[in-house]
């Protein structure tokens, strides 16, 4: 698939102006068609919201896998609190609601002809395309860390087999072993995720292999909900978890899976388990189309989530540059609702609203009955950039009571039940 520069695209658009005008398709009396690539928090929510608000639109959801495993609560699987099956969902309900769910890989998009090609050669026409491709790992950004290395030093930053692999390694580890967790620089999927992971692995080790140690080798100088995590770690896990910032030679610059070696600028480690979370970028299909404008993630207009690079293509979720919104399943879900309503408005010949309030809450479990959170609320400015609403949002308080921590843990579980019900039924 050829990359298209903005300039080239504008040229093509002028040449193909007739096919670019959605109202022409509508006036042809055919039901407008929306194709969605990616069936995660963003894509599944766009599909179901469209069925709800614009039942006349024909919706096709293209997803590579027959089932979706959520990243949220995958750390609970690593900590032995849940089974992988409890965070795995299918598409039957979405299909029953009239969405054409196709299990296939979308291999190519022609934004001028407005077609999507699938792995088996099938072509789908669309009036509006939504991409929710999530993130891909930037293989090679850490020397020696490629797809083969990830089979020995799992990232487990896409839930599923990688999660199971890391869990198996933790179960097989001897007491007294060293676990390294290596988070990347910003931006990356789920900013508090690596630290929740350290917490729940510590919970498992404390009860099963108490002489073990967790070393967080961080590329950053600070992290999400840091003081809350550190307060909890001190109270629950003593000195089991140690965090090393980038300035103290924390950043992992190379690995050798053959010798289980993890290298920073000045130090070398040979852990029993290495969870290397590499830098990330928008999913391959978005990059192949140049939707990232060379930035690694894709700029969008926050009122419609339409690409700033190629008109007619909308993007939601971790693949986007969504201003102040963090990359999270919650953000993707909130964005998807706004995106679906905007598409419904556009295809009906109306203007999309700019009145939405988007939300994100990242709950983190530090242990069973101990939850913390960070919340944010967002709107668009005059340019369609997503900005934080002043005075709203923030983290759980430091020094809160056991009841508050237990309530937030229960809310996290309840949130998960509700949002997955909303996405998958």
């Amino acid at each position, binding site marked *: 698939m050829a990359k298209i520069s903005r300039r080239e695209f504008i040229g093509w658009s002028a040449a193909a102006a007739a096919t670019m005008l959605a109202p022409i398709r509508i006036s042809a009396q055919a039901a407008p068609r929306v194709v969605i690539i990616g069936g995660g928090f963003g894509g599944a929510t766009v599909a179901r*919201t469209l069925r709800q*608000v614009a039942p006349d639109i024909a919706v096709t959801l293209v997803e590579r896998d027959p089932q979706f495993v959520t990243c949220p609560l995958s750390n609970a699987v690593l900590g032995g609190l849940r089974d992988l099956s409890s965070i795995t969902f299918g598409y039957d309900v979405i299909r029953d609601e009239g969405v054409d769910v196709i299990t296939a890989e979308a291999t190519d998009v022609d934004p001028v002809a407005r077609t999507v090609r699938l792995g088996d050669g099938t072509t789908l026409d669309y009036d509006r395309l939504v991409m929710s491709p999530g993130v891909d790992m930037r293989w090679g950004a850490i020397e020696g860390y490629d797809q083969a290395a990830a089979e020995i030093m799992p990232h487990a930053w896409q839930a599923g087999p990688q999660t199971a692999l890391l869990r198996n390694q933790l179960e097989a580890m001897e007491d007294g072993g060293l676990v390294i967790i290596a988070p990347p620089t910003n931006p990356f999927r789920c900013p508090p995720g690596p630290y929740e992971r350290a917490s729940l692995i510590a919970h498992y080790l404390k009860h099963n292999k108490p002489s073990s140690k967790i070393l967080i080798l961080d590329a950053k100088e600070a992290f999400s909900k840091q003081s809350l995590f550190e307060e909890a770690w001190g109270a629950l896990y003593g000195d089991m978890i140690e965090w090393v910032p980038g300035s103290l030679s924390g950043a992992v610059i190379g690995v050798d899976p053959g010798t289980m070696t993890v290298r920073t600028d000045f130090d070398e480690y040979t852990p029993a388990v290495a969870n290397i979370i590499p830098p990330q970028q928008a999913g391959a299909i978005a990059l192949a189309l140049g939707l990232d404008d060379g930035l690694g993630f894709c700029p969008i207009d926050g009122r419609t989530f339409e690409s700033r690079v190629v008109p007619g293509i909308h993007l939601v979720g971790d693949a986007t540059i969504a201003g102040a919104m963090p990359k999270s399943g*919650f953000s993707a*879900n*909130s964005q998807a*609702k*706004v995106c679906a*309503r905007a598409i419904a408005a556009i295809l009906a010949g109306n203007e999309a*609203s700019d*009145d*939405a*309030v*988007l*939300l994100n*809450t990242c709950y983190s479990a530090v242990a069973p*009955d101990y939850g913390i*959170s960070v*919340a944010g*609320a967002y*709107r668009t400015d005059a340019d369609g950039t997503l900005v934080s*609403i002043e*005075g*709203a*949002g*923030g983290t*759980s308080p430091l020094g809160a009571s056991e*009841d*508050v921590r*237990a*309530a*937030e*843990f*229960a*809310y996290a*579980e*309840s*949130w998960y*039940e*509700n*949002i997955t*019900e*909303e996405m998958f039924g």
Partner: protein
Amino acid sequence: MITKPSSIAGRAPLGRKPTAIGGIVALAAAAIVAGSSFPASAQDDGLLANACTSCHGVDGRSEGAIPSIAGMDPEIFLAIMQAFRSGNTNATIMGRIVAAYSDEQLQEIAAYFAAR
């Protein structure tokens, strides 16, 4: 009609009593006694309310500890939101989120969930 306290509180997390809800219901009752009026014309096409369901469940019907808000009396809904906004409760999440909304927006959302 006053919504049953049980549907406001949802299930108490892990056998503990929810921290703030009793006080909120009292506040809500006080608001009703004081005769605060709710504009019946407030409408919402769901754009604002749609964001709430990520936590509070489809149509505001929640599983588990997060309170259900489907069918909630709008005056109670608004009284609870005002209590969260004033910080007079032990809210965990909602106190941080409610600050994002104007009174008008909250009225729209209240009307939306009242009709579910």
